[in-house]
């Protein structure tokens, strides 16, 4: 089996894409912390549930961005193949 340079680059791109989506760990932890504190806040003050929900979702969506950057890098490596 001959491994050409292109094959090697494709394989390394796949490994790199896999490594890039490890970025999902951070937003996962962050969103979990935000949801936990949101639940605690609703427990203390059930009347403010609406405000807490919207603030929590906003913060979670902003925290999600870094994970999405990792996903974008993975997509670029796999489908656009800038290195090949």
């Amino acid at each position, binding site marked *: 089996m001959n491994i050409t340079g*292109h*094959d090697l680059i494709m394989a390394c791109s796949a490994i790199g894409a896999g490594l890039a989506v490890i970025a999902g760990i951070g937003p996962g932890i962050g969103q979990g912390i935000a949801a936990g504190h949101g639940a605690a806040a609703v427990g203390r003050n059930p009347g403010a549930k609406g405000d807490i929900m*919207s603030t929590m*979702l*906003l913060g979670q969506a902003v925290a999600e961005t870094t994970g*999405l950057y990792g996903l*974008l890098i993975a*997509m670029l490596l796999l489908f656009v193949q800038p290195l090949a």
Partner: protein
Amino acid sequence: MNNAILMTSGADNIDFMIHGIFSYEIFGHEVWITTSHVCILIVMLLLAGFSVAANRRMKRATEVPDGFQNVLELIVEKLDGVVYGTMGKVAAPKFVNYISTIFVFILMSNISGLFGLRPPTADYGTTLALGLITFFLIHITQFKNLPLKQIWTDMCSPLPPWLPLWLPINLISEIAVPISLSLRLFANVLSGTVMMALVYGLLSKVALIWPAALHVYFDLFSGAIQTYVFCMLTMTYISQNYEAE
């Protein structure tokens, strides 16, 4: 060889890319009309038809609403409530039209994946345009509402205004606003599109009814959340320029 990674799984019917439909030359550049344009046109025609119907209904509005008028009043009141709740009484009347428009447009674009279209917001061109509109809106309101001295002070913010060492970093963070806004929306919708395409492409025989649950999550839930977040961040950035009042 180009799709080597996907080919090994034996599926060549996975398709989530944007396709060109026809190309034309303008000023020596080759420009393509793509599937995104067609989908965006469908969404636009749908919204335009809806608004024409709404306009004709509201011209003969009755004191006690019924049927279609109820729906329209509900939509407008909800959007008004969100915008007024976030921006306050001073800024909200100026921006409620823009925010409501992009809200309805992004929402319809995101959930158009349900109807077999490729969501127009899964094309970076669309979301970058939306992000740039927001960016210019933020800075136009800033220069209209705040005195130049205060803008300069804000730009040099942690250090005193006569020492603009921090200015380049603040400028970069200003430029990052439209990029992060547009990339957030784009990547969320794109990830949903890609995952649905993978499910349908790789499990073509098995994917019968249960992908409906995935559609509910990726298209409805994620799409609605991202719409809300985009509009919310736009409103927050704009109303920062009204704090002096």
